[in-house]
């Protein structure tokens, strides 16, 4: 199915999958985003995971374990600052296009989450205002079993209204031709 000679093609004979307008984003901050932690939203998220952890749903239970109210699931932090999609400028696969966080890789329309590495510092409660900053750490072209791809890595920091670091994450995306 796969041409076994694929991997022998020299990089120098191929056009880079990373255009200059993408490469210049390396090291830059991709704007700031903020949002409010809402109990119903994080409970909907937990319910969709079928994670009925009483720390997320039962305030009395959470207080009995040292919290002042129900807490948000730690991984929910990444959704607190989500914006509003412009359905007119979506890419054909339904993912956002033309947003500040979008990396222009027109040769690689197929996007997949790569990995993520989280550190969690303090819990999040209903009403917390979370500010997120995200920096493009690197954009590199790689070659794997299923061919060439582009690996994009970001570093994100999430802080609450007291500027206390709530969580940090290094995440990556794989973009394929």
């Amino acid at each position: 199915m796969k041409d076994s000679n694929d991997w022998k093609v020299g990089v120098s004979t191929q056009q880079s999958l990373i255009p200059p307008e993408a490469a210049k984003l390396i090291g830059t901050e991709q704007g700031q985003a903020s949002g409010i932690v809402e109990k119903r939203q994080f409970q909907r998220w937990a319910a969709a995971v079928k994670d009925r952890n009483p720390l997320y749903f039962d305030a009395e239970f959470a207080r009995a374990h040292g919290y002042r109210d129900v807490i948000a699931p730690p991984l929910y932090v990444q959704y607190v600052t989500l914006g509003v999609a412009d359905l007119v400028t979506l890419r054909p696969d339904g993912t956002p296009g033309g947003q500040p966080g979008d990396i222009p890789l027109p040769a690689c329309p197929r996007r997949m989450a790569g990995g993520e590495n989280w550190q969690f510092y303090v819990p999040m409660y209903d009403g917390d205002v979370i500010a997120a900053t995200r920096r493009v750490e690197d954009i590199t072209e790689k070659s794997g079993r299923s061919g060439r791809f582009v690996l994009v890595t970001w570093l994100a920091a999430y802080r609450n209204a007291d500027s206390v670091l709530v969580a940090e994450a290094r995440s990556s995306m794989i973009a394929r031709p």
Partner: protein
Amino acid sequence: MADQTYFEDVSVGDAIPTLSVTVDETQMFFFSAATYNGHRIHYDKTWATEVEGYPNILVHGPLQAALLARAVTDWAGPDGRLVGYAIQNRASAFPGEELRFAGTITAKRDGNDDYGRGLVDLEIRGEKGEAEVLMPGTATVSLPRRG
């Protein structure tokens, strides 16, 4: 989930209880909705198969990650805290497949700023079929000590 795991009671090499889940299209829809995710590979079977070449729609990587974290936090108990969590998306999962989320303790160490607690490192993984790894990773959990 009311059971509490204590630092003294766990040993390197111990396995945490495996969470076994079969995700269906309804759960996937709710997860897309809860994460404001319009990506067609998670709901449009024609798009997923004919345009992207997958055998079916794909279970979201972040849903698998959330289920794997749930396996860890269920085990850690209400006084445990997830402090570190890292995963890689390795393979695709499809609705109707049995997915398993598992972990093994790899290290125990003192917390450096949290008296009365200890840190436990785990190797974690989501898998399906004959131990096909979907999502390898690591986690660090802060656990209370007894007394």
